[in-house]
């Protein structure tokens, strides 16, 4: 795809004729730009729509088809923030996300290092088995998980969320990290061994820093998974104080007598917002790591 287009726009050829140059540059821009624009519109439309809807007055959405709010107002946000449990739900989401990011990351770093560096029996089989939890449809796990967790008396506790969220993130994080660790040349670790670094020091001082983009990538994906997780919390928690934001968003639909779409969308925006902030904060590193990971 880039072959012919990059040939056309090559610096050496630009002098052969302005028309050709122009079409070449234009062609190249179109080739990259159009799909990119489609993707951006595709991704952003629902978010923009939700933001606009959240700024409308409660019944406006039923009365007018206009995309833009007639009298933009933050009333809906005030209502959401004034909700009785909002602080608690936000806290719940944040807590399980932090735990379900750091626990899986820690376990995955150790596991991935083992998979990447030690040739043990059944290594490949084990690595494949690692994926099973992600291959099985989540809904099919819910009934057995629910009865297991009831037997353990963990329903409606943070523990049940920590355990299930972490368990579902570990395979993903491990697979990402195995690739990153395996791509670090073995000689670098051997040099560290000769330099006197034990396994812990090699991991901490050499492997993790070199594979850091991979760790960040895995971490961001863990955050995303935990923040968005819905099926587990729905199945394993029923007290309102234990809900997370996505769960409450789901409940909200039924909880409000009259459908207040502005409030509903304000809640949606507030649910997405923290995740967007994490992305924006780490965007450079994640993009770097995805690119470098694919080139290597």
């Amino acid at each position, binding site marked *: 795809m880039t072959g012919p287009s990059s040939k056309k726009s090559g610096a050496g050829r630009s002098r052969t004729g302005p028309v050709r140059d122009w079409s070449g540059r234009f062609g190249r821009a179109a080739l990259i730009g159009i799909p990119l624009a489609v993707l951006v519109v595709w991704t952003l439309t629902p978010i923009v729509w939700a933001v606009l809807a959240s700024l409308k007055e409660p019944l406006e959405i039923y009365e007018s088809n206009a995309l833009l709010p007639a009298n933009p107002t933050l009333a809906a946000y005030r209502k959401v923030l004034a909700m009785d449990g909002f602080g608690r739900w936000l806290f719940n989401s944040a807590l399980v996300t932090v735990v379900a990011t750091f626990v899986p990351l820690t376990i995955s770093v150790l596991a991935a290092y083992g998979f990447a560096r030690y040739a043990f029996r059944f290594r490949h089989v084990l690595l494949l088995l690692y994926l099973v939890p992600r291959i099985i449809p989540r809904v099919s796990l819910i009934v057995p998980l629910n009865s297991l967790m009831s037997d353990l008396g963990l329903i409606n506790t943070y523990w049940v969320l920590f355990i299930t969220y972490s368990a579902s993130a570990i395979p993903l994080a491990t697979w990402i990290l195995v690739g990153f660790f395996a791509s670090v040349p073995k000689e*670098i670790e051997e*040099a560290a061994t*000769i330099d006197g670094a034990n396994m812990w020091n090699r991991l901490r001082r050499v492997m993790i820093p070199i594979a850091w983009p991979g760790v960040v990538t895995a971490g961001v994906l863990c955050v995303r998974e935990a923040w968005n997780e819905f099926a587990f919390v729905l199945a394993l928690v029923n007290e309102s104080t234990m809900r997370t934001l996505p769960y409450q968003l789901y409940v909200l639909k039924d909880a409000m007598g009259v459908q207040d779409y502005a409030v509903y969308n304000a809640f949606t925006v507030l649910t997405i917002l923290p995740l967007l902030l994490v992305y924006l904060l780490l965007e450079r590193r994640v993009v770097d790591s995805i690119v470098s990971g694919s080139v290597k």
Partner: protein
Amino acid sequence: MDAPFVALQDLRKSFGTTDVLHGINLEIPQHAFVVLVGPSGCGKSTLLRMIAGLEKIKHGRIVIDGEIVNRVHAKNRGIAMVFQNYALYPHMSVRENLAFSLEMLKTETSEVERRIKTAADILQLEQLLDRLPAQLSGGQRQRVAMGRALVREPKLFLFDEPLSNLDAKLRVEMRAEIRALHQRLESTTIYVTHDQVEAMTMSDIVVVMNAGRIEQSGPPLELYDRPATEFVAAFMGSPAMNLLRGRVVRADGAPAVDVGEGLFLPFDDRAGVREGMEVVYGLRPEHLAISPDPASGLIGEVALVEPAGWETHLHADIHGRRFRAISTERLDVTPGSRIALAPDPTRVHLFDGSSGARL
């Protein structure tokens, strides 16, 4: 004579079912610069890694400075290793690369500073200490890798093809630099390469390996002048020795080797060589004298001329057999020219036709 500084005793190594080393025995005196050379896959790296402590030793013994190190951890063997791809820590500055091993050994800060300064002085790294490896040229990375070995003040330096990633000019420079460093520090060094020119020019002792065995070891010129096997004869020297199979005959009382096609190659009589023996006849290109007078030797037809400046390499066919010859004269020949080639019978090497051993 002193006890050897490094002794390898009947070292064997297999990976799964493939045997890679078949019983290596070698003694290395202190301060020596030893070059392990051999074709790709012959087990040089494996041997070096066993000495370094990166491969388990299941059979045989390694002694360094009077101590059996089979069970000694790599970091405690008093060695330092320079890898082919440098293996610098890419996330650390040059200074941190140099300091890492000392930090692992919990060396005092002032001592760390002193050693980094010494290494940086010797290798001209002062200006580069705050850079990352990615910001260095190939030659600079090479020097940092050596610096990292230097700060450990090792008893034994190990190099695994350290120059093979450099371009030809830089390689020649670094070769000289490594030799100069050795002359200055006098630390015992084992240096792996597959380049026989490096082996010849750098070593005090060359060890030629082939298929997991040592073919011959000794001073480079000794190997050049008296190769113990056909393999060593073929491997050492560039352009390579002329080697031809044939049968020992006596033509008019003078011994010669009949290599077929009616071609008889003369040699000086020597003990252990009898008529009728199957042998390999070896003659270095510089011992095949070229004369423009067609009456004075074997008549050859020039196939290829390679002027190398101060000498000229010739490929010529005699009775359909290709020979290499060197002349330091400027020759006025072109492909197709007929010339006379005279083997020097006193410089002929003979090897047993089946075992390849020197006769």
